[in-house]
């Protein structure tokens, strides 16, 4: 019974990680940019929502409105990030990593300066603050639902629309795509903007689960990186499976082998890499 609760809880964390990591993996796959500011964007989402809602319990409508506004701000931040990266095109991953890491530090320190360096959190919106089946927090069920909806939308766009086909084509063969008259730069920009919007949205979604604090950005960045390393780069299916696997390892895995908890996640990552060095759904590059 308690293992079932653990598995369900793993789904909730997996859903949150998916929303965060799907943008990271697509940005890497599409733009060939390792966006180390992704964790800071998550953190920015959380802090902006906290500033907007003031840490108080609010209605679901107000909460959702704030989350959409924060996602829009994330898109704007994505624009800034794209403009900053532009001069570094073709300069290799290290330069891009340094730039995005620097921007991440600036952003997170700015947020800590505006709010403060203490701990903050936001209760779930009214109506989602109760529990189900006796003692399981309703909000975590809502996070799973949100993850399913967002995953569904992303999958539908990616697999069933012309826009998604363009994105997939831009991953596979940008030269050919440009040759048939598609503005590849615009396709890349839209992936960047969408990925950054999802990252800040994840920051709001995770607010009742993970406290706002100094260092939150690097903590979630590491988790998101593990998800995409396990799942494989530039693969939505990889992000789904990677996020769910990380979620289960951190709940069911920890419950089964608590004394190995500190190493479990990295052991799983190592095992996946030994089995397939480009991740579960990644393609060799």
């Amino acid at each position: 019974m308690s293992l079932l609760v653990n598995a369900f809880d793993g789904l909730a964390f997996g859903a949150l990680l998916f929303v965060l990591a799907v943008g990271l993996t697509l940005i890497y796959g599409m733009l060939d940019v390792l966006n180390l500011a992704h964790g800071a964007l998550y953190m920015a989402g959380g802090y902006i929502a906290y500033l907007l809602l003031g840490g108080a319990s609010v209605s679901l409508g107000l909460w959702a409105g704030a989350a959409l506004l924060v996602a829009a701000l994330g898109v704007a931040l994505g624009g800034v990030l794209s403009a900053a990266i532009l001069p570094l095109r073709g300069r290799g991953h290290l330069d891009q990593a340094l730039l995005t890491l620097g921007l991440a530090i600036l952003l997170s320190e700015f947020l800590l300066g505006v709010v403060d360096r203490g701990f903050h959190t936001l209760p779930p919106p009214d109506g989602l603050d109760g529990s189900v089946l006796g003692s399981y927090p309703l909000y975590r069920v809502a996070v799973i639902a949100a993850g399913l909806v967002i995953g569904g939308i992303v999958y539908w766009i990616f697999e069933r629309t012309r826009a998604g086909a363009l994105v997939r084509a831009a991953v596979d063969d940008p030269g050919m795509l440009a040759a048939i008259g598609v503005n590849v730069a615009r396709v890349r920009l839209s992936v960047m903007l969408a990925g950054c919007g999802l990252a800040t949205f994840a920051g709001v979604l995770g607010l009742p689960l993970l406290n706002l604090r100094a260092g939150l950005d690097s903590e979630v960045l590491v988790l998101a990186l593990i998800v995409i390393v396990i799942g494989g780069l530039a693969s939505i299916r990889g992000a789904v499976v990677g996020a769910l696997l990380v979620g289960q390892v951190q709940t069911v895995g920890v419950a089964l082998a608590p004394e190995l908890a500190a190493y479990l996640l990295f052991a799983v990552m190592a095992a996946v890499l030994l089995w397939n060095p480009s991740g579960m759904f990644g393609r060799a590059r």
Partner: protein
Amino acid sequence: MRFALLALAVALAAGCGGAATQQAADDSVVKVGAIISQTGVYSALGDDMEAAMRLYLDEHGGKLGGKPARLVVADDAGTPETGQQKARQLTLQDQVNVITGLIASPVAVAVAKEAAAQKTPVVIANAGADALGGPGVFRVSYTNYMHGYAAGRYAAESYGKDGAVLMGADYSAGTETLKGFAEGYAKGGGAKPLKQILTPFGKTQNFQPYLSQIPAEAKFLYVFYAGGEAITFAKNFKQFGYDTKLKLLTCQNITDEDVLQAIGADAEGITSVGLYSPALDNPENQAFTAKWKAKTGKNPSAVALQSWDAMSLIDQAAKRGGDLAQALGQVGEIASPRGPFTLDAKHNPVQNWYVREYSGGVNKVIATIAPEAS
């Protein structure tokens, strides 16, 4: 490039040498070097620490022991390497008479080592590692062991003699506090705890899988978590309904002022054992909490109290005159907002511990655990 490095090395050596020749220190001022985390994970505690030290000086006319005092604050960024480097700078360059502050234990260990080499006394205002100490090291906070030990004695008396489960973060503060609890509990006649659950330090975002390890026959849970983990634990414990299944006793950090606001309503009713409560009824505490509230608008945290007392100890020692390192050990009883305390032979505090129940925005004192008669 190589020349620049060489020039830098020469400049550094010259700088150090210059400082060393000025050893004839100015005797008319008391210089206090405070090594505080102004950045890094402990920076929220660092803000309280600095504010309390400055408040003490402001309230005492900027003087310690009757002499004008200067507080030099250095940031350890939460790492031992930076802490040690700052200790060196404070002793050699700024020529402080005493070093205080010190939030994280690994930083305190590195700083104590450096200070001993420079023959500068250290007053620890927070770090709790049991092994920390030495002839020139004085502590006004607590040792992790004593923190847990006091709670263990109380639990044996009030929570029953069996059915204990311990849970905490897997690093020195966690394991030392739990060890202290187990021994205090045994001393009070309690049975061996049913289980000890350790969680990876700083990496646990969800305590539900660990809480599900608690055996069904458990009667109560003693936990150690601080900072962000304290918030997550308190919320998870309540959200998953464990508060209706078993009694909870916690370390003081779970309901300390730095985390209470973030825990919110889920903190209501948590019982903890700590060395201080803003609700303590004594004149020193009334004066201290009033001043602190006027300055910050909040209740003082344990770190704020300890930092105030660190300055108070230095003040008393400076008043005695003579060698400061020696005087620090001879102060005797210190009147503190937590109630009077003394330092034992190892320079650790002998003090009351308080059982506090959080309700209506404050940790109310429901019992006092006096030091064991030695």
